[in-house]
């Protein structure tokens, strides 16, 4: 039996790591005292750069993942102002997302209704490798899912579950024309799932990399999966330009450990970057060289015409086995548990950020192609050829930092890498691999983001470092502190720290796009005329209450500043009442809400102009209960209220409804 903690022969390594970590922490605390360093500019200068005057607009929209709040938050850059929280994988009582009957299906999975997840990586749709402003994708890490947000409405319009996957971390990165969204498993698991000893990991566990096809309409379908060895697949990025047919995934735990991974998965000198040729994969699928694997998964689509989400349940998935598909996958050895894998704007350089090392390894796509042609292999793993490290290496960035995690690019041939342990952003030059500048961050950045910084066309003006630790940066708020974003000006030779701002949840990755691309696409209202919700009430004359057994459907309208109907009688204990509320307004920003007392399972409804939403209400007491508009809609908002009478089933009260009847 192996000892449970710190096996004798491996004691030195964690000890060494520990010393380095402490050194790193000391370094970062030193940095905090010399806040700024080389790139320091006066507070006035910085304030001027981030000041967006009242009534003026920010230059960029930034979408930040919420991490464990399961949402996306939308910020303006350079101001750092928060505009909106988009609920995706979590119920949001604020607007009734996941509480209204129309949106509940978006949170359905093969496990049932799951109203929470851990959302990590937002990814904008691209055309020709450039963010196009159509959709934003984001992954759910815990119960593997990928969501699509429509950037006309900033609403979640689809969630698709990923079967055979566990910990959907290396997701949802898009190919150059959004042909596919990828979803790689972080945790390898038995495939298909079965009851086996955990210690049988090496025999029974595998990792799938999923490819989700995106239709021109945006609808997602799980096209195929690639069955990989039982490693942990961490992050991904698709190629672009000459490498556009490829997707690169990092993996760690090539040791295939199943316990105490912090030690046991950190033993090998190198793990891998997996390079997958998705065009080849498509060919193999077309040739029928796949295996049908079992797997139940949900695809939940929000139909914009009915404003209602529906769940579609699928069975089975096409799985490609690399050993049967030559040329499909290659492994590139990458030092020390690589985390982020990032492709430069030209598509030639692939940066592997070895999170337990000090250096970055940069691979050349041209050299990879050459090595494949010349069969410069270093053996194989599960039938996957391993390319010779030296044959594909383009350069090593000797950074002097520690713990590189992620790299993004500007439009001038520079790359920027976050170093978690040494708590800094390092700027270096592609081709020369020389460090050009370094700035401390406060503290410990995870991802960083440059608008378009993972695309073919970075808008290289700003850089945002997404810090995991804030400590002393803001007013203390008890033991629980916010995370923090830091904005740098990267238009000059040296990075200049401009602004700190607190963020919501725990942002992992972020993406940003010029406001000029999104603003003209933004919807102001939902057209009532094209609202085809089956429970829509288009005019006040159509408002009604319908009983069918113990189910009561209330067809209700809202307009400034009244409900129709606002007096409802003839509801009995034991009934289930569905309030189908339509906001008749067709004016920008004329929202209404709806809430009813004693509502146990659900929240409120928040209705945008022209929208219909449904709130399920099961009365539990006899009496007369008020309902009211929760959105301060107008001068007479406070008068926007009504009553619903609940009677005992023994009584005889006729079903009536009205507004304005004395």
């Amino acid at each position, binding site marked *: 039996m192996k000892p449970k903690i710190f096996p004798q022969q491996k004691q030195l390594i964690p000890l060494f790591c520990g010393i380095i970590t402490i050194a790193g922490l000391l370094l970062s605390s030193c940095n905090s005292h010399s806040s700024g360093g080389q790139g320091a500019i006066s507070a006035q200068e910085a304030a001027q750069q981030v000041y967006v005057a009242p009534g003026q607009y920010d230059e960029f929209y930034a979408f930040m993942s919420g991490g464990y709040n399961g949402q996306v938050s939308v910020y303006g850059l350079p101001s750092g102002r928060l505009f909106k929280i988009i609920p995706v994988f979590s119920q949001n009582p604020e607007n009734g997302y996941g509480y209204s009957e129309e949106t509940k299906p978006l949170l359905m999975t093969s496990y049932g209704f799951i109203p929470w997840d851990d959302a990590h990586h937002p990814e904008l749709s691209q055309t020709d490798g450039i963010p196009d402003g159509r959709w934003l994708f984001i992954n759910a890490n815990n119960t593997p899912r990928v969501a699509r947000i429509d950037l006309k409405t900033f609403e979640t319009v689809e969630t698709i579950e990923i079967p055979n996957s566990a910990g959907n971390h290396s997701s949802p990165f898009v190919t150059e024309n959004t042909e596919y969204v990828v979803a790689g498993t972080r945790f390898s698991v038995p495939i298909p799932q079965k009851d086996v000893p955990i210690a049988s990991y090496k025999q029974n566990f595998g990792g799938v990399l999923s490819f989700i096809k995106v239709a021109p309409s945006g609808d997602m379908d799980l096209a195929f999966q690639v069955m990989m060895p039982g490693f942990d697949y961490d992050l991904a990025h698709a190629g672009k330009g000459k490498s556009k047919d490829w997707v690169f995934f990092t993996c760690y735990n090539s040791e295939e450990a199943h316990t105490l991974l912090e030690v046991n998965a950190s033993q090998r000198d190198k793990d891998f970057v997996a390079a997958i040729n998705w065009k080849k994969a498509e060919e193999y699928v077309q040739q029928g060289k796949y295996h049908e694997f079992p797997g139940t998964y949900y695809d939940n689509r929000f139909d914009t015409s009915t404003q209602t989400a529906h769940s579609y349940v699928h069975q089975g998935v096409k799985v490609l086995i690399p050993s049967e598909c030559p040329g499909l996958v290659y492994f590139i050895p990458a030092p020390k548990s690589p985390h982020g894998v990032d492709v430069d704007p030209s598509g030639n350089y692939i940066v592997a950020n070895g999170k337990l090392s000090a250096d970055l390894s940069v691979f050349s796509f041209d050299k990879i192609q050459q090595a494949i042609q010349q069969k410069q292999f270093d053996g194989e793993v599960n039938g996957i050829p391993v390319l010779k490290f030296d044959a594909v290496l383009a350069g090593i960035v000797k950074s002097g930092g520690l713990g590189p995690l992620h790299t993004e690019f500007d439009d001038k041939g520079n790359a920027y890498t976050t170093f978690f342990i040494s708590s800094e952003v390092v700027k270096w030059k592609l081709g020369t691999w020389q460090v050009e500048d370094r700035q401390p961050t406060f503290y410990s950045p995870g991802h960083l983001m440059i608008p378009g910084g993972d695309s073919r066309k970075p808008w290289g003006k700003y850089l945002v470092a997404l810090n995991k630790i804030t400590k002393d940066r803001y007013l203390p708020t008890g033991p629980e502190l916010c995370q923090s974003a830091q904005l740098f000006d990267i238009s000059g030779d040296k990075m200049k720290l401009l602004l700190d701002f607190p963020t919501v949840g725990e942002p992992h990755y972020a993406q940003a796009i010029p406001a000029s691309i999104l603003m003209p696409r933004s919807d102001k*209202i939902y057209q009532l005329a094209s609202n085809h919700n089956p429970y829509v009430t288009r005019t006040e004359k159509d408002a009604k209450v319908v009983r069918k057994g113990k189910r009561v459907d209330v067809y209700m309208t809202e*307009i*400034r500043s009244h409900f129709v109907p606002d007096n409802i009688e003839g509801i009995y204990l034991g009934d289930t009442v569905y309030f189908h509320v339509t906001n008749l*307004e*067709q*004016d920008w920003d*004329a929202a209404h809400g709806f809430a009813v007392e004693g509502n146990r399972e659900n929240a409120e409804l928040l209705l945008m102009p022209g929208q219909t939403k449904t709130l399920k209400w099961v009365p539990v007491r006899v009496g007369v209960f008020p309902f009211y508009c929760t959105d301060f809609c107008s*001068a*007479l908002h406070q*008068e926007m209220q009504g009553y619903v009478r609940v009677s005992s089933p023994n009584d005889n009260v006729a079903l009536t409804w009205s507004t304005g009847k004395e």
Partner: protein
Amino acid sequence: MKTKSNRTASWLMLGAVLSSVLIYFFPLWKITLYAPQYPQGIRMYIWINKITGDDAYTLQNINILNHYVGMKDIDPHAVPELYYFPYALAGIIFLGVIAWLIKKRWTYLSWAILYALSGAIAIYDFYLWEYDYGHHLDPKAPIKVPGMAYQPPLIGTKHLLNFTAISLPEWAAVFMLVSVVLGFAAYWCCRSSSDKQLAHHHPNILTSSSQSRVLSHH
């Protein structure tokens, strides 16, 4: 007898008729409302046959705002003028064509006068509608400001509670004015040309100026 001036008058009259046709394709009047909540303004356009806004929902939105002070809904279907004004204009255009065919001074003049009077009546009618909307308020209105009426201006700017209302003629009104002016111009052209004709064909009849010249010779 065709003369150059007569041809000019005929062209002017034709221009007047064509300009009138354009009235169907452009709004006559525009009322713009500004409020703190509507910094971009809400625009309402009055046409010869309809009332429109910035988009399909503008009237609904204005009506929602107006109902707080008890103003009636602006319902284009309830304004009969929008039905018969297009026919009245068609009648005027028809008469214009007749006048153009007859090519007589008096036809030009009477057409221009008729048109000018009709235009004045239409503007007065518009004023009456504005007065009606602004003064006949629902006694049960949620917001009642004693002594306050909400009649928008005919032309110009007026502050009505939180709103600033700006009322101005639009292109079709310009075309109407141009038509009337061209009608009168045709009449004037005809008159001045007949004077010249007289002078040209009857050299013995002295005009007052030539007479004075002759007198000074003696």
